[in-house]
Every structure is written in C-alpha cells, then in structure tokens.
C-alpha cells in the first residue's frame, strides 16, 4: 500500500518507493530499509551511494562473451586469462550461471552469456539474445566444443535446440550438460520430471 502523503516527508517516501521496485521487496521491507538508512551512520549511506554510482559507470559487457566486466577492460577476467582453454565455450543464460560454474573449479574453458532464453510469450526471439555473436565466435575458428548449459526448462531446452540447429552446420562439437538427480538428494524426494530425465540419461557402469 502506498504511504499516505501526510505520514512521511517526500524524500523518505521516494526512497521507499524506489526500494519497492526491487525484486523480492514488499512495501514493509521497503519502509524498513528506508528508515534504517535514515538512521544509519553516514558511512553506511556513503558506501551504498558510491556502490550505486559506480554500478553503471564502471561495469559493462565483455566484448567477447558478454559476461560482466569492468568498464576499462574490453574483455572480462575469464576471457583475458591465458590459462583458460579458448577452444571450449560454455553457453549460459545469465551471468549468475557463470558464477555457479566457476564455483565448481572444474571448468577451464570460456563462456558465452546469452542474457536470456527464447520465449515468444515474453517476446524474446533469437535476435534478442547474443546468438549471432556466438555464431561469429565459432565461425572465426579455433573452437572445438560448445557446451550448452541453459537451464533444463522448456525454454532452456528450446534455446539449446535452436543453438544446435545454428551451430551444427559450422562443424563444431555441440554438447549439453547431463541432466538428472542432484548429489546428496534422495530418490524418494525427487520430483517426477527429474527422475524421468535421470532414468533416460542413465549411464553404464564398469
């Protein structure tokens, strides 16, 4: 519910409304955050002000993989790293997926961030994603494998199917992340879809 005009001074109301626009923040949390900042020491608000000011000015997209990078660097830290294997590209939906894959410490290749998935309902088509740029990277040569790591959802699968269609003719190996049961999970508690995918993707032992 909007704060009545009489109840709080205009700048406080403006801050509450700004917070309310953020995902996951309701009117109560927004009011609590705003009042906290109002009473907080100067250095807390200063740090927030600086972080916000630098956010857009100092962050941009990597020119190669479209992950985030600092504004004075055309390439992100991963693309710049000479240790990374430039012949393998892992395609993800979102920069947070890069973070998740990096946490494994296992992947030594580079990335390509699509910034979304195909979804006609939301009006997202191939030209709204960084697909043309991915094709260019592969066409430039030197790429041996493209790993499709979009989410195992209807839209993630459809995007992967689209990418296969586009990349296969370019003569590159295209793979998809294995799908199935989470480690430490319990068969009994796995949902039907996950179990079905795991069953279909079973592997021979020995």
């Amino acid at each position, binding site marked *: 519910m909007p704060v009545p005009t009489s109840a709080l001074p205009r700048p406080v109301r403006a801050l509450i409304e700004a917070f309310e626009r953020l995902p996951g923040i309701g009117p109560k949390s927004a009011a609590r955050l705003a009042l906290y900042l109002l009473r907080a020491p100067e250095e807390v608000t200063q740090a927030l002000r600086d972080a916000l000011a630098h956010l857009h000015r100092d962050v941009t997209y990597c020119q190669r993989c479209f992950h985030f990078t600092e504004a004075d660097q055309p390439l992100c830290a991963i693309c710049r790293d000479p240790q990374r294997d430039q012949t393998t590209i892992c395609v993800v939906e979102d920069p947070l997926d890069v973070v998740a894959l990096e946490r494994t410490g296992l992947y030594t290749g580079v990335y390509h961030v699509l910034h979304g998935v195909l979804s*006609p309902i939301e009006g997202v088509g191939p030209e709204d994603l960084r697909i043309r740029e991915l094709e260019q990277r592969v066409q430039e040569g030197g790429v041996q494998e493209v790993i499709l790591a979009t989410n195992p959802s209807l*839209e993630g699968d459809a995007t992967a199917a689209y990418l296969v*269609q586009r990349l296969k003719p370019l003569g590159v190996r295209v793979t998809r992340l294995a799908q199935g049961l989470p480690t430490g999970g319990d068969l009994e508690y796995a949902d039907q879809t996950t179990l079905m995918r795991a069953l279909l993707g079973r592997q021979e032992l020995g």
Partner: protein
Amino acid sequence: MTEPHEPAMYLAQLHLENFRLFAYFARALPRGPLLIVGPNAQGKTSLLEAVAYLATFSSFVARTEREVIHFLALREPLAVARVRGACVRSALGNTAAEPIRLEVRIIHQARPQGGASPTRKEVLVNGVRRKLVDALGTCTAVLFVPQMLRLVDGAPELRRRFLNQSLAQVEPGYAAALAAYNRALTQRNALLKAVAEGRARAADLRVWERPLAEAAARIMQARHRALAAWNRLLLQRYRDLLNRTEPLRLVYRPALDVPEAPTQTRLFGGEEPAEPPAALLNDRQALTQHLLDRLAQRRELDLRRGNTGLGPQRDDVRFVAGGLDLAAYGSRGQVRTAVLLLKLAQAAWYTERTNSKPILLLDDLLAELDADRREELLAHFFQAGEQVLLTTTDESMYPARYRDRTEVWHLQQGQVVAAQPASGPGL
C-alpha cells in the same frame, strides 16, 4: 456384495475451513456407505466436492476456484479455504495402514491496486509442501455430480477436463505432461502471432514443436489406453445395463490431423463415429513423429488461424451405444445411465491400476431412476467401492436393504444435525 477385506481407499477424517458454506467442519467418516440427507443448498454437494479436491486438487463443479472460498473469508485481504483429510489405502487382509494426511489450500490474495488477483493452490502431504503433480494419486476418488450429464452432449472441453482429472489420479506423469504441453502450446501460439506480425521467422517454430509433440504423444496415448480399458470393462461387466442389447462404448476422437475414415451410416439414420487410428496411438515414437510432421506441414494454416489446430487440446470423445451417438440420439434416461456406467468403468479401472477401490462420491445418484434401476446400479456401485458417499434430498429413495449398513447424516446449513451410525454388518 463387497468382501470386507478387499483393499480400498478411504477417508477417515474430513476437515474443512472456509470451504463454500462451511466456515468450519470436522468429522470422522465411516469406512462403508454414508448417506447424506438434506434439502437443497445445505452443503451436500460441497462435501463431495471437498473430498474430490483431495483426489484431483481441482473442482469439476466450480467455474472459478475463487468460488469455493467462503464468502466471508473473501472479504479479508488473504482468504484461504482448506480441505484436509486422512487418507488410508487399506492393504490386503485388512492390516491397519498408516493414514496419509493431505491438505489442499485454495488461496486468494486481494491486490492492493485492485485488478485481477489470481487464485493459487498449495498441497501438503503429511504436513510437507509438494508440487501438485507429485502429490496426485495420494487419494483416488470417482465423483458423479448431475452436471456431468452434460459430458455426453455438452462442449468437448467438458470431456477433456473429465479425462484430465480422471487420468491424472492414476497415470504417472500425465499431469506433468499436460503442464509441459500447455506451456509449449502457449509458446508456439505466441510465436505464430509474432511470425504473422513479421516479428519472427516461421522456421523458429520448430524448436517448440518437438516438446509439444512429445508431450502430446504422451497425453494422447494415455487417453487412448484409458478409453480402451474403460471400453473393455464396460463390455465385460456392465454390458447389459444401458439398453439390454448393446454395451456403451466410448470412441476417442484424437485431433491428429489424419483424414478420417468415413463414418458408418446405420440403418435408421444414426451415424457411428469412426474408430481412432489405434496402430498410431499404440506406438509412442511413431505418434510423436506423426505429430512433428503434421505440425511442420500445417504451419501456414496455423499462421492464418493464429493457433495450433491439432493436439490434445482439440480431442473429443463420443458416447456410442447400438451404433448411435448418444449426444444426438440418447434419451434422458440413457444419457444418465451412460454417465453412471462411465463412472463404474472409471472406478473399476482405478481398482486395476492402484490395487485398491477408490472412494465413490455420488451426488443425487438416486434421482430420475425407477426403483429397479436404482437398486441395480447401487449394487454395482457398492461392488466398485467400499467408502461410498451418497447424497439425496429424499431419504425414502434409498433402498431399505442397504439401510442398516449405511451411516446417515442429516445436513442443515453446513451442520450435521442428526447422525445414525450403521447398525448392521458391512456390505
């Protein structure tokens, strides 16, 4: 008569909050027959609807789910209707089975800015939140309400909803396939629109057609198999009940986009719908490939129409007896009997699939049937289920021979004002 020890599903407890006219209702249920007696609008049908919620998590009766929430609760910003039950699937030999606690919450949250506020649902199994598709099958029930007479001659949408609610209870993966199908269908239809407006290319439709065809094949194959099983049961067990000559048959009309076999015209002007292409429906891979091919072929056509012209959202089922389509040629009595036979077949099929008889919920079953037919059908229903919940406005219609085995509740404005437990032995 039912053997007392045949495995059956039953509800030991029913607990309602803010469900229809029940602000609060809690009562233990008998394991055998229960007759709910009362004038109209006292909550008889709503009690059956509530039990059916535990089996399908949806209503066959309500137009919108919001209407099952008590009207006073709806005045609150957050309104919750709750149906809770303790379901027991008794095992062979009458060993005491652990009851499973099921809870369905129908939640309506008013938006502060107004506008359409959606109703959502939560399902808890033994107190733990579960996805709806994963909790289906915990409780199995067969519901008859007089509105279902429209199944025979009403819109195909009613028959599809009935099929979906029936299959989701016992066919693993059916509800999930249905959800996947609807999502893929929405995406393909949105893309058709984008292509028609020049915002996308027709070739991009392909990536949505694969998941669409896979889910469609699952759904259509499940429907075909269920209807074939129901026809087998109708023939084996209920052959003579409709018109003493020919059994009731359900003819599946899948929207597969195949040229139809010519309908057979019968002697007296009736037309029997063509049989579905069984060979195709029995082979999942061939069916998926067929759907994929047809979807690709009809892109131009679908572009002009602006939606997808084949698939389970366009399926239909016809009720046929003696070569006649009952939608056009059935008498009122025949239509009523046909729907009741369908319910018997559904119950018998559940028993085959789950190894236990389902709960039977029969609203106003006794009306409009003569005394002989009433007894005959009741005998079959008591055979098909152990916990049988019946409603009536007129207690005298209930055959005397079942009386002492039946618990009777008199319902007034959502309250049981008088109850007589069964006095005699179980059925």
